[in-house]
Each structure stands twice: as C-alpha cells, then as structure tokens.
C-alpha cells in the first residue's frame, strides 16, 4: 500500500500566528509555538509531523505565503 507523507516548512519570521492553517489542517499537524518570532508572534510549526499528508491546505489559506509544502509517495511494507 502506498502512503503520502508530507512536510511543511514555515518561514518563521514572516508568520504572524493567525492560526488559520491550524484550523485548515485536516490531520491536526500544525500548532502555534510557545516561543515567539522577532515580531512577537507565536509562529506555526509541525506538532505532529508524522500525520502530515502534504495536502497543501495550510498554504492555501495562509495570508502571508510563509508555508512551503513537500509531498512524497512511499511504499509501505
């Protein structure tokens, strides 16, 4: 069986912590960090990286275009 594994990269300095991506993620991968960036915003990061399927929903709703998405198909044994 094949499975999609995804990876998101958040540009921490341009993220404003609006949490729209947290809401849009179907597999609850994204959370807001406890730490803040240079502007004082709690930036988004991958809390559960294993669950990411690379659907790019987070990047679709991001107003600041700070999310880059990668996706790869892997064969499960």
């Amino acid at each position, binding site marked *: 069986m094949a499975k999609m594994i995804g990876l998101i990269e958040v540009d921490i300095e341009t993220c404003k912590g609006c949490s*729209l991506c947290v809401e849009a993620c179907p597999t609850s991968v994204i959370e807001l960090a406890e730490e803040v960036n240079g502007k004082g915003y709690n930036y988004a990061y991958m809390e559960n990286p294993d669950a990411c399927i690379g659907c790019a929903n987070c990047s679709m709703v*991001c107003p600041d275009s700070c999310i880059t*998405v990668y996706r790869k198909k892997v064969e499960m044994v």
Partner: protein
Amino acid sequence: MEENSMAEVFNDIKKPENLVYSKSKVLTDNVMHYCPGCSHGVVHRILAEVIEELGVQDKTIGVAPVGCSVLMYNYIDIDWQEAAHGRAPAVGTAINRLWPEKIVFTYQGDGDLAAIGTAETIHACNRGENMIMLFINNGIYGMTGGQMAPTTLKGMKSSTCPFGREPAQDGNPLKITELLAQLPGTSLVTRQAVHTPAAVRKTKKALLKAFENQKQKKGTSVIEVVSTCNSGWKMTPVESNKWMAENMFPFYPLGDFKDE
C-alpha cells in the same frame, strides 16, 4: 537516535521534485503590513499565482485603491498605478484605452468601490470597459478604524454604529455586485470567499476566468470576495471566519450572478 532518523526522513522529502507548493515568484519579499489573518493577503497571493501561471507578469497593470490595500504595489511585482479614493475604475478605463493589449485590473475595498466610487464603478461597468474589478467586501472601513460602510449588515456593530446598524437611521446595506450584474457591459459577475481551502481554490478559478475574459475582450469582470476584518470586527481570525460564514453569507450569498 530517533531524532536523527526523523531528520533523514525530512531530508528525503525536502527535494525539488517533491515540491507541492511554494511562494509565488510574482510576490515580492516584502512582509505584508496587514493584520494577522487578513483576507487581503490570501487574495494578493492567488492574484500573484494567477499572473505567474498565465505568464502575464510583464503586461499586467494593476490599479491600487485607497484603503488597507493602498500599499499593494509593494507586494506584487507588476506595473501599478495608484488611484484617488474610489477612482480606480476611471484610472483603469484610461489605461485600458491607451494600452488595449495590456491586462488591467482594479483592486478595491467596499468603502472605495461601493461608497465614494459608486458612480465610477457603475459607469465603468455600464460602458463595459475591458478590465477586471476585484472587490474586497468586509462590511467595514478597516483602515480608518472600523467605521460603518455601505455594506455593513443590518444590526452589525461598528465604531460609528456601536449599537448595530439601524436601517431607519443608517440606511440599508448595499448589494453592489447584484446591481452590477444587471448592467449590459459586464461579462462575469461572481461573489466568492477565501475562508477555507476549497473557497480559495474556487476564487482562484474565478480569477483565471476573469483574466481569460480580459484576453478575449468580453467586457468587465467583477469578482467580489467576501472577506473578514478581524481587527475591525474585534475577533480572532478563526472566529471572524466563522462569523462571516454565519452572518455575511446569508445576506451576501456566494456564487455566479452572470457568466457570459
């Protein structure tokens, strides 16, 4: 040990051939000045993506409005003209007539398009000027501190109607997109939103259609985007999206009004 294997997996995925989404090259590196979660950012982004996909970066001219998006020319790397408050369709008309082969779009908020610029908007659409009009409707004057706009809903609170809009005193909210759909000059009149990934994809599709109409010289394409102003509405971005779906959509229903 486990962290090492995690990093290995990440390095394995993070390759150019696995790239699904990255920031559009038409967007500049400037950080947008908008509040966190503002719909303007999403609309700017899909606009840049459409321009990049169609390969029209060198022949697109945008007309920036007065309002929060007044500094829009800092964010999308195309040619721009700044218009006086409400006069973007008039400036767009001039550009369109001087360079008919260029792609012209105007980008306005509700205070710009539906209040001070109503005459320009209606007459540009009635003449059927060959351009794209993007209308961001958040029911409030966001830039100046959340005053009541023509599109403010009945009973909706703003800083100049703190107890809610009362039609007997303040008049009724204006559905300008429905008005524009009646005019013979318009070819595509649609209302969209950008609150969910599906809605963003639909709005992008509508934009692609509008750029296509412009190429075929079909007339004015009006795209209204029902948006949020979380600072003006005094809510979090997620709450304001929910509030918009519950309160704005019943009065401003999404969908195409005209597609010829």
